[in-house]
């Protein structure tokens, strides 16, 4: 009994003291990448010359429903953070370029996660990154039905931008601009994910490896060469 309790305590302590290291963290890496990308892309020039925002990306915008004031740059970074929330959004962040856009989404996530996210087709479809980001099923073919849980893709950003440009009410216009930049930030998150090897192949298991939980779900996660066939050939 004594040994058993000691073992339980040691196991419990070792489990809760694991330090998680996320290379593409939603609160740090993604917003940082967005910050640097926006600066290098000279978005400020467009905002000043085309939209008349003299402060460029430092123009403050306030939301209509919840009066929070942030700069355009901060709204873009906020979008890059928000794309991972709620939990199951990130299961739409994978794209295997060796497959057609209709089937390039991730499929190797554990059954428990698939069940939790209710992404078993056709009840709750799961999308590849590129479709999730653009709203297009394949090149030039738009999805015939709107995507569940997705109102912040490239197409939506266009829509919000159009509404912002045509809205006459000052507060509503700023709100549409906020939505435009947040949606753009979320699309940037998806583009940034395409620089992660695990996101451009069918490899959800790597995310579990980060948490040292892959072995609990899939004993072959570390050695299953078949998952890397495309890259190796």
């Amino acid at each position, binding site marked *: *009994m*004594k040994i058993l*309790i000691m073992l339980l*305590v040691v196991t419990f*302590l070792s489990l*809760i003291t694991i330090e*998680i290291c*996320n290379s593409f*963290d*939603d*609160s*740090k890496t993604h*917003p*940082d990448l967005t*910050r*640097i990308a926006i*600066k*290098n892309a*000279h978005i*400020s020039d467009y905002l000043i010359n085309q939209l008349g925002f003299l402060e*460029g*990306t*430092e123009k*403050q915008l306030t939301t209509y429903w919840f*009066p*929070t*004031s*942030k*700069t355009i*740059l*901060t709204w873009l*970074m*906020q979008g890059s*953070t928000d794309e*991972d*929330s*709620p*939990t*199951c959004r*990130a*299961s739409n962040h994978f794209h295997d370029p060796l497959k057609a856009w209709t089937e390039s989404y991730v499929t190797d*996530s554990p059954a428990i*996660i698939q069940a*939790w*996210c209710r992404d078993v087709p056709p009840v709750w479809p799961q999308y590849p990154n590129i479709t999730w980001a653009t709203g297009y099923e394949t090149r030039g073919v738009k999805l015939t039905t709107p995507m569940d849980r997705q109102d912040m893709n490239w197409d939506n950003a266009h829509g919000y931008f159009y509404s912002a440009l045509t809205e006459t009410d000052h507060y509503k216009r700023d709100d549409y601009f906020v939505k435009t930049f947040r949606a753009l930030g979320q699309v940037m998150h998806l583009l940034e994910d395409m620089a992660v090897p695990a996101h451009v192949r069918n490899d*959800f298991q790597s*995310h*579990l490896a*980060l*948490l040292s*939980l892959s072995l609990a*779900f899939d004993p072959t996660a570390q050695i299953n060469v078949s998952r890397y066939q495309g890259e190796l050939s």
Partner: protein
Amino acid sequence: MAYGKFWDFNSGYTKRGSQMKFIKTLSNVLTLLLLSGCYSGISGKVVDGVNGNPLEGALVLTQWTTTSGLPGLTHHSVYKIEETETNKEGKFSISGVYNPFVDPPAMVIYKKGYVPWRNDMDFMNHTWERYDDIIWKNGITYRLEHWKSEYQILRLDSFVGHGIIGSSFNITPIYSKIMSELSRESQLEVDKSKQMKVR
């Protein structure tokens, strides 16, 4: 019922007493673990790293986040964000958080003309490390080094803003204003650098 023996944790002579001793230890460990997520209010001092003079008006910002989601699909939400400025003596105080499920706080100290300080990164050595010994401790004197012109402002911008996702002009006006200024300066630096490359 041998009530006295049942609660006699120090005796250890009976089997029941021995078990209770372990239960007590276990409960103490669990209580400590729960309390480890609680951060009482702290105070400290910010001084010039060269002459030790107190720095007035230095920003001290602290952000607590919570991590939620499923394995492999985790995300962060801001639990609390608080900012303050140092007084004439360079002193500041920050209120705490009492939630066992909160992540360790991110703390940033910055004053224009000085190298900023964070509890999870080192600006000078280009390293990312948590200073666990001073991560949340009372009475620490933070010594800020002088800023040098050869340092990159874009890096300073990223360093001060890294992982601070709960800022807004309504909640953290001082920090937001500083970030806005840094962002403008870093954009100028990027533009200048691009012009140099074109030439």
